[in-house]
Every structure is written in structure tokens, then in C-alpha cells.
């Protein structure tokens, strides 16, 4: 599974992109976040307020209960500010 972090999520986690192999308990976005946050430090901090975190799976915006598959590309980012 590929995980991407953008903007301050990238800064807080210190990671732009990573390949992860989460345990079987990770079945959707919420449990993925729990597992990533469990690493502590910047990861826990990045996900401390989920109201400012948006998620896309395979370049589709999704809700936090979206189910995940091993080959998915999951991206975490703040609300967008382009234009």
C-alpha cells in the first residue's frame, strides 16, 4: 500500500510518500490512520485533529470509513487552497 502526505501532514510526519504493509486489522482509512498514529511522534501529531485532514484513495476523495485494498494509493492532506 502506498501512502502519500501533503502540505503540513508531510512536514509533521517528515514523509512525502511511503510503501507500507499494515497488519490485517487495517481494513479501512480509519484503522489505517490508527495504525499510522501508533508510530507516535510526528505521525500521531499529524492525525491529532481529523477535522482538518482529507483523504483520497486511488485519486478519489473518500470518507474515513472507505475500505482499503493492498494495492491502494492513499493520500492524506489538509483542505485545499489553490487558485
Amino acid at each position: 500500500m502506498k501512502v502519500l502526505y501533503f502540505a503540513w501532514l508531510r512536514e509533521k510526519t517528515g514523509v512525502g510518500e511511503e510503501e507500507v504493509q499494515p497488519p490485517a486489522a487495517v481494513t479501512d482509512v480509519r484503522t489505517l490512520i490508527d495504525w499510522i498514529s501508533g508510530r507516535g511522534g510526528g505521525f500521531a501529531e499529524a492525525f491529532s485533529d481529523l477535522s482538518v485532514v482529507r483523504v483520497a484513495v486511488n485519486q478519489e476523495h473518500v470518507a474515513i470509513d472507505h475500505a482499503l485494498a493492498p494495492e491502494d494509493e492513499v493520500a492524506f492532506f489538509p483542505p485545499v487552497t489553490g487558485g
Partner: protein
Amino acid sequence: MIRVQRQDFDVGAELARLSQGNHAIGGVCSFVGLVRDFGGGDRPVVEMTLEHYPRLTEKALAEIEAEARSRWPLEETLIIHRYGELRPGERIVLVAAASAHRQAAFEACRFLIDWLKVKAPFWKQERTPEGSRWVEARTTDDESAAGWGKDGEGS
């Protein structure tokens, strides 16, 4: 047409190309977004960095363009968005809509920029003399986008 690029663009050349050879076009409405020296904050912006999520950007902009074309009778549409380091006064984005009639051109152009602001995955970091800060999404942008109905509240 959609382009996401680091380099600047020539507004006149882009708009001329848009209507080139299509004499059904009666008007081209365009919007150019520029970097302001006091973005959302009270400290002068020295430089801004625009980051994006390329694969999603491409998809999001294509969807916005398609939605505009389905809502108005348009001859052509254009979205060019830059990323990377930009200084105050520099161009960030150009959107344009060309139509036989000006009402469609205006409404579609406004729609393009309103939806782009809440749907395209770009993030701005402003550098000021006292440090950097990530620009926060504005609720007024959500409201502008929502004004167009259906799926307009952003992601």
C-alpha cells in the same frame, strides 16, 4: 485545455490560441489569480510555495472542466495552474471560458475558479519575515463553490 506547470504563462497568447480559428466565439471571459503581498495574514508575504498532488490534480481539473462544459454552451475552456515558488505579483492561475454569448462565458469562468479553489489539490505555504505558514482553506470559498449546487462543498 488543462495545464499544470512550474513556469509562467502568456495570458494574451493563451487566450488568442483558445479562440483561434473559431468564429462562433463571441466572447472570452478569463480570470488571472495573482500572489498578493498580504495573503490571508497580517505579515507581508515574501514568497509562496504551491505544492500539489499531480495525479489527483490532473483528474480534478479534468472533472471541473467537463462539468463546466456540461452546464454551459461553451466553445472552449482553459485552466492553467502553476506550482513551485512564486513571489507577490506573479500569476498563479488562469481560467477562461469562450462562448458565443457573454453570459455563458462569465458564468462558466466563475464556476471554473470557484470549483478549482475547493476541488483541486493545491496547498499554499507563505513565507514571511517571521517564518512560514500554511494558508488555511477559507469557508467563503466553500460557500462560493456550494453556490453552484451539486457536489459543490469541496471534498
